[in-house]
């Protein structure tokens, strides 16, 4: 069997330095990491792949540094990586991204059985690339999947969707987007690290290699356009309280007691004031 895991490198948001002047995060200083949901998708693919004897291909699209997550994927147990990188891809929205990924899969893994993606990324959180990739490839898909088993030519899936616990069956080939909460990703074994940083099976391709017209990808190939980016509501004139917790709480309730009373609809004035 052949599994494909599509993954994205995202900035490690918790480590991002904040620039108070521009009110932006310094993305240029950001460390990249494998998007957590993508890691879950990879983990699911590797676990299932071991059982089914499947070859696992990790694919990412991004700047050259995104190769890091392919190395990580190989260290975890993926067999090969494909990096799609090209300046022409900059500014791709989910429409153009799913188009590009589909063309790459058609060329480099046309006989795939199962495609797995993270259900969403931590940077833009659209959750759109997975379902749109399925549409591009003309295959069925299911989103927010927790468990996958394969039997014969059929994938059996479990997921919780809008308050329903569902068991689904889809004939292969198909695509699933994998939920974030279930599996603990495996530790990277030392041998895996050696594999990942030795002679690795990572191929790097650009749009020309994929036979793609550059006008169909990047900002030009994207139906959506960003008008502007603004900082939401700037900091309030906030009251700062410091000191011992007991003192702070007394001060808080003293200064805001009528307000808090009104908000929680309960009288919190001290009894002697009633």
């Amino acid at each position, binding site marked *: 069997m052949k599994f494909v895991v599509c993954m994205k490198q*995202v900035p490690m*948001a918790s480590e991002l330095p*904040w620039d108070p002047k521009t009110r932006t995060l310094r*993305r240029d200083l950001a460390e990249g990491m494998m998007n957590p949901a993508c890691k879950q998708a990879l983990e699911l693919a590797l676990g299932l792949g071991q059982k089914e004897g499947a070859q696992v291909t990790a694919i990412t699209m991004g700047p050259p540094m995104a190769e890091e997550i392919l190395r990580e994927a190989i260290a975890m147990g993926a067999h090969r990586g494909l990096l799609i990188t090209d300046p022409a891809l900059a500014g791709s929205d*989910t*429409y153009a991204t*799913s188009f590009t990924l589909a063309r790459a899969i058609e060329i480099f893994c046309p006989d795939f059985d199962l495609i797995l993606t993270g259900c*969403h990324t*931590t*940077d*833009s*959180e*659209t*959750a*759109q*690339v*997975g*379902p749109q990739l399925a*549409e*591009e490839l003309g295959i*069925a*898909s299911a*989103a*927010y999947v927790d468990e996958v088993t394969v039997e014969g030519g059929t994938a*059996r899936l479990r997921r*919780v*969707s*809008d*308050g*329903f616990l*569902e*068991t*689904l069956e*889809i*004939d292969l080939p*198909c695509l699933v987007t994998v939920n974030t909460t279930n599996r603990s990703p495996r530790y990277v074994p030392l041998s895996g690290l050696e594999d990942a940083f030795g002679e690795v099976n990572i191929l790097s391709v650009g749009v020309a290699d994929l036979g793609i017209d550059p006008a169909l990808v990047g900002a030009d190939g994207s*139906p*959506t*356009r*960003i*008008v*502007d*980016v*603004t900082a*939401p*509501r700037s*900091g*309030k004139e*906030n009251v*700062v*309280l*410091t000191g*011992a917790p007991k003192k*702070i*709480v007394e001060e808080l*309730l003293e200064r*805001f007691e009528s307000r808090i009373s009104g908000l*929680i609809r309960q009288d*919190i*004035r001290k009894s002697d004031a009633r």
Partner: protein
Amino acid sequence: MPAQRPEIWVFGDYRNYFQNRVTLQLLSRATDLAEKRGALVCATVFGWDTGEWVGEYIAHGARKVYLVEDRRLGRYSCDLYVGLMERLARRYRPEIILVGATSFGREFAPRVAKRLKTGLTADCVGLDIDENGLLVQTAPAFGGNLLTRIVTPQKRPQMATVRPGVFREIPHDHGATGEIVRIDFPEDMPPDRVRLVSSERTLPVPRHLGNAEIVVCGGRGMGSKGRFRNLYELARLLGGEVGATRPAVYARWADEDALVGQADKHIRPKVLFSFGISGAIQHTAGIVDAGFIIAVNKNPKAAMMKMADVAIVADAHQVCLALIKEFKKRLRA
């Protein structure tokens, strides 16, 4: 056969009707947009025995309902609904399609957009019409403390998904009337490729974090599961609900239902207590509508502290305990 007047469509997502009011919220926002655009607010309803929803949508602002009723649509099916929406949109050419960002909507909308070769903006927190008549879609984005405004200049329809709870529904109007356009289920529709083997309701969640007036939120700064548990005590005293950031949920201090953030629950409490939360955008995008924010963090420079009305520079756990003690004293009947 495009309609004479531009149409704004709202996808009728009627499953879990009593908990999930997103369709009504979108009809309300669509009504505002329609006024600016001189457009007609329409709903689409796919299903079987759907009279109840058709009436509800008209009472909440839909002036026209495109209705496909068939036994084969008796259960939610992404494959079939995508196919139907594609065909309807090609035939009637709506200018805008809005979809609630339920689990279903988040799978359905991207596929519809792809088939119609148009753009889609996820998880909008704002929708407006600009001077050129374009739908301006505001979405929190890019791991920065940022809101991005996005348009789809050329392609039609313009499509957006919107989180439940972002807009307010307009009151039910019994007197409202609307046209119902019945469309037969197309006999040449390809069969559903996804077979539903079983489906059972998960246990209902008694909590209604999304509309709680008082929310006590905790993050990594609470330190441990045992300490985090005190937040439930505080919330109980105040008659509120507990929310959590991703790190707190990943650490299993709180259930996933408690997740508050951009891609999770949006909350709009009158008062928000925030304990040990640094204020990453993924979280703060979900609390921008909180009325009065009291934040506790050791780090006065944390983004959450800047957003707060009252910023308490101290250990979150200690302040939580002190608040519990003080409220217990004062709330004693």
